[in-house]
């Protein structure tokens, strides 16, 4: 019985922390550097734009580029994927009376909702458990919302630098000075191609890491500054599709149960979501906790299986898949939050910091709110004209005083109880929610996803064969994500390439983008893992399950437009 964590990747966070190397006059200097053009980073940029407009004297002091946002995707939104049913609260707070929610690119308020427990053939409706009630929330495509927020941020004066990855954290004398961006135009073995372009040192007075789930530099910073939380972070993997459909769906649907197995030994925690996106589109996704044990489990194939359920087949009938994507979701909750959300010169926001409420299936509004609070903390420090080590601590105070903290505290033990099996866990979870978190079960042990001892079942034998109409293989799905990553660039995935067969199988089945394949026997009981890095849609599952994702060349990866 293997554990993926016994085969750690050749990766050291230290390799990604560096002093600036460009000569001082070649560094690009900005005021506030935000890494990641997602809801957190863009909310931060938007709020900074508002504050700097009100205080031109501060803007003046920040130089030509007061606010810069790095984005590794082709444009803001390219790498954004979520449900997404969004609690509009944080958007209201960000825009105030500058914008009405109707001005945002949404699919309107949640029209109604159903929750079903599925078996292979049947669907048993249950009353929506309290945390899953979505009255008053709005349906968005997060990718579209990202593009919209990007435009607003640029209007507010932020400079967005797309197709630029943040490769290294620049630290000098214990203080974060900015980031070094990734090189472009390297060949497979790392050599410089004709179009080689070296990365640059971007230095800033304050650096905000808003990288989203599995943030590369966020992980590096948590280690460098000893910020990891009480519990290790754990993740879930979501795979979703957007469909053009023949008839509109009139409510949002969540399902539990099939195709996941209830047996406690499998540790299969998750469920599906099916949301209308206007009159002619529907999104369907399946989310599964990455603390599962079965090496033959594939969330992508389970989603394909889910679509064959009579109830769901009916919703998609006559329709056509138009997009596909995958992403991890940090699910450790309160106990996995970093000990502090700041370090000298550095702030951590959103999903990167683990601000996700799994029982409520919400995180976007925490990302936006934390980005806004980070902007205010950075602005306060900059207004005083100094950024000493403790100057950014007001951000931690602000987050602790916000609804982010209250909400996450309320459901602090929710995720762990599901390790006790779905039904027992479900009952405990309901008890916790109804009592607003007052039921004290004691803190439950938590272990990293990659520590789970592996099982190998023949679950993969029963995945439906792709028919190209309702069910799809992984490669055509990668195509539908818009991914056309340059093949001859260095491999960005750190992974132990010789592992026991079950670990290789785990990675091969887990990866929704068919990056890993079980290769030939190496003769000593291990097999070689073949890696096709250009398939990667940067979901981050490999980091949870024993490898390490680093950012590929800027501009690589999916080009989501509707997810």
């Amino acid at each position, binding site marked *: 019985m293997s554990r993926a964590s016994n085969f750690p990747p050749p990766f050291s966070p230290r390799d990604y922390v560096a002093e600036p190397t460009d000569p001082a006059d070649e560094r690009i200097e900005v005021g506030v550097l935000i890494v990641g053009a997602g809801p957190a980073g863009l909310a931060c940029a938007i709020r900074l734009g508002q504050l700097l407009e009100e205080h031109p004297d501060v803007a003046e002091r920040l130089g030509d580029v007061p606010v810069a946002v790095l984005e590794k995707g082709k444009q803001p939104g390219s790498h954004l994927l979520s449900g997404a049913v969004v609690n509009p609260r944080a958007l209201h707070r960000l825009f105030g009376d500058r914008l009405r929610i109707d001005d945002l690119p949404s699919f309107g308020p949640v029209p109604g909702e159903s929750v079903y427990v599925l078996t292979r053939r049947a669907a048993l409706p249950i009353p929506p458990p309290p945390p899953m009630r979505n009255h008053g929330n709005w349906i968005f495509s997060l990718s579209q919302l990202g593009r919209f927020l990007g435009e607003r941020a640029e209007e507010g004066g932020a400079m967005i630098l797309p197709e630029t990855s943040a490769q290294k954290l620049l630290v000098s004398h214990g203080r974060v000075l900015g980031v070094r961006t990734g090189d472009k135009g390297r060949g*497979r073995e790392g050599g410089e191609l004709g179009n080689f372009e070296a990365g640059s040192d971007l230095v800033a007075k304050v650096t905000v890491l808003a990288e989203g789930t599995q943030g590369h530099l966020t992980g590096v910073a948590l280690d460098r500054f000893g910020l990891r939380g009480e519990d290790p972070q754990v993740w879930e993997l979501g795979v979703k599709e957007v469909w053009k459909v023949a008839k509109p769906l009139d409510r949002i649907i969540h399902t539990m149960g099939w195709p996941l197995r209830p047996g406690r030994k499998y540790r299969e925690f998750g469920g599906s979501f099916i949301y209308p996106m206007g009159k002619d589109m529907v999104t369907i996704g399946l989310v599964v906790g990455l603390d599962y044990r079965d090496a033959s489990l594939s969330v992508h194939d389970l989603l394909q299986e889910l679509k064959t359920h009579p109830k769901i087949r009916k919703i998609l009938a006559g329709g056509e898949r138009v997009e596909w994507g995958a992403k991890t979701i940090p699910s450790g909750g309160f106990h996995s939050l970093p000990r502090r959300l700041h370090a000298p010169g550095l702030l951590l926001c959103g999903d990167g910091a683990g601000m996700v409420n799994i029982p409520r299936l919400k995180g976007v509004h925490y990302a936006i709110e934390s980005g806004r609070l980070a902007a205010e903390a950075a602005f306060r420090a900059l207004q005083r004209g100094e950024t000493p080590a403790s100057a950014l601590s007001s951000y931690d105070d602000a987050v602790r005083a916000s609804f982010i903290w209250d909400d996450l505290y309320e459901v602090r033990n929710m995720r762990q109880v599901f390790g006790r099996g779905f039904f027992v866990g479900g009952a405990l979870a309901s008890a916790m929610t109804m009592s607003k978190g007052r039921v004290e079960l004691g803190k439950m042990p938590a272990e990293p996803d990659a520590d789970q001892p592996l099982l190998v079942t023949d679950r993969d034998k029963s995945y439906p*064969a792709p028919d190209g109409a309702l069910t799809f*293989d992984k490669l055509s799905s990668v*195509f539908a994500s*818009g991914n*056309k990553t340059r*093949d001859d660039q260095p491999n960005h995935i750190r992974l132990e390439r010789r592992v026991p067969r079950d670990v290789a199988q785990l990675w091969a089945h887990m990866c929704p983008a068919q990056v890993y394949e079980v290769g030939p026997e190496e003769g000593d009981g291990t097999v070689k893992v*073949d890696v*096709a890095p*250009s398939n990667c849609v940067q979901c981050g599952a490999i980091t949870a399950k024993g490898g390490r994702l680093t950012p590929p060349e800027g501009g690589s990866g999916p080009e989501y437009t509707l997810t």
Partner: protein
Amino acid sequence: MATLVFLEHHGDELQKGALGVLAKAASLGDAAAVIAGPGARALAGEAGKFGAVKVWVCEDEDVAQPVPQPRVDVLAQVIDDGGYDTVLFANSVLAADVAAGLAARLDAGLNWDLTDIELRDGELVGKRPALQDSIYADVGWTSTPRLALFRAGSFDATPTGGGEPEIADVSPSYAAHSGSVKLVGQDAEESSGPSIEDADVIVAGGRGLGAPENFTLAEELAKALGGAVGATRAVVDAGWYPYSAQIGQTGKTVSPKLYVALGISGAIQHKVGMQSSGTIVAINKDPNAPIFEFSDLGVVGDVHEVVPKLTELVRARST
């Protein structure tokens, strides 16, 4: 409409892609061509066969090397002298640079990655694949000169039966910065037979070949058919074959007359790179392989058995 086509040549051969664009231009009206570099004059007659009524040649020392900037000077001069309002290019590393440089020089609009062009009520309309080649967008120009860069293999290079063209010399004054790029070296990749972009026949191998050494099956068959060898991304990734042979979404896009797929499953990423081939023949032992859905002839069988026999038959036929 006065159309000029940029013809690229290497040695004593004009690029087929550019000749295809020329033939297309000639079908729309009078077309002229420009050839710059050593041996340009000798190739003018060849350009005539593909429809050029006039060929501008430049054999200046400044264009001796295949670098873009001096060619921008040449084209700018020809456009000025000849009064051309439309300039067409066939995509190549050099042509793309020249087209971009010319667009900047003349402040002209460049539509790139076109696969076709037509006259519609006197208006020039380009066809450009969009959304991962799932639709064609009509594109036009709002000013002249109109520049267009066509995707490789957009048109067949079919002689139009044109006669001897008029030949005109051009020798522009070269911009100072045009001489600042120097060619430091040139290496030709070892290869026998035509390149995959130009070949009429491509034999491509996928992972179904089983092992790198089995690529000899593809090479032998390609040799017998007078074609080039292509490869899928999976085998290039695995190091079985060089990246230059990769066909597909992230490799090269090809459109030979005959495409033979050996042990290729036909993932969509591969399909988009070869779907415009004339006749597609697939040999694969998996009857459910997606490639059979878009091949003209499918053979369900083991490549190790079928291919040697096929090669033998082709050889027997051609001797």
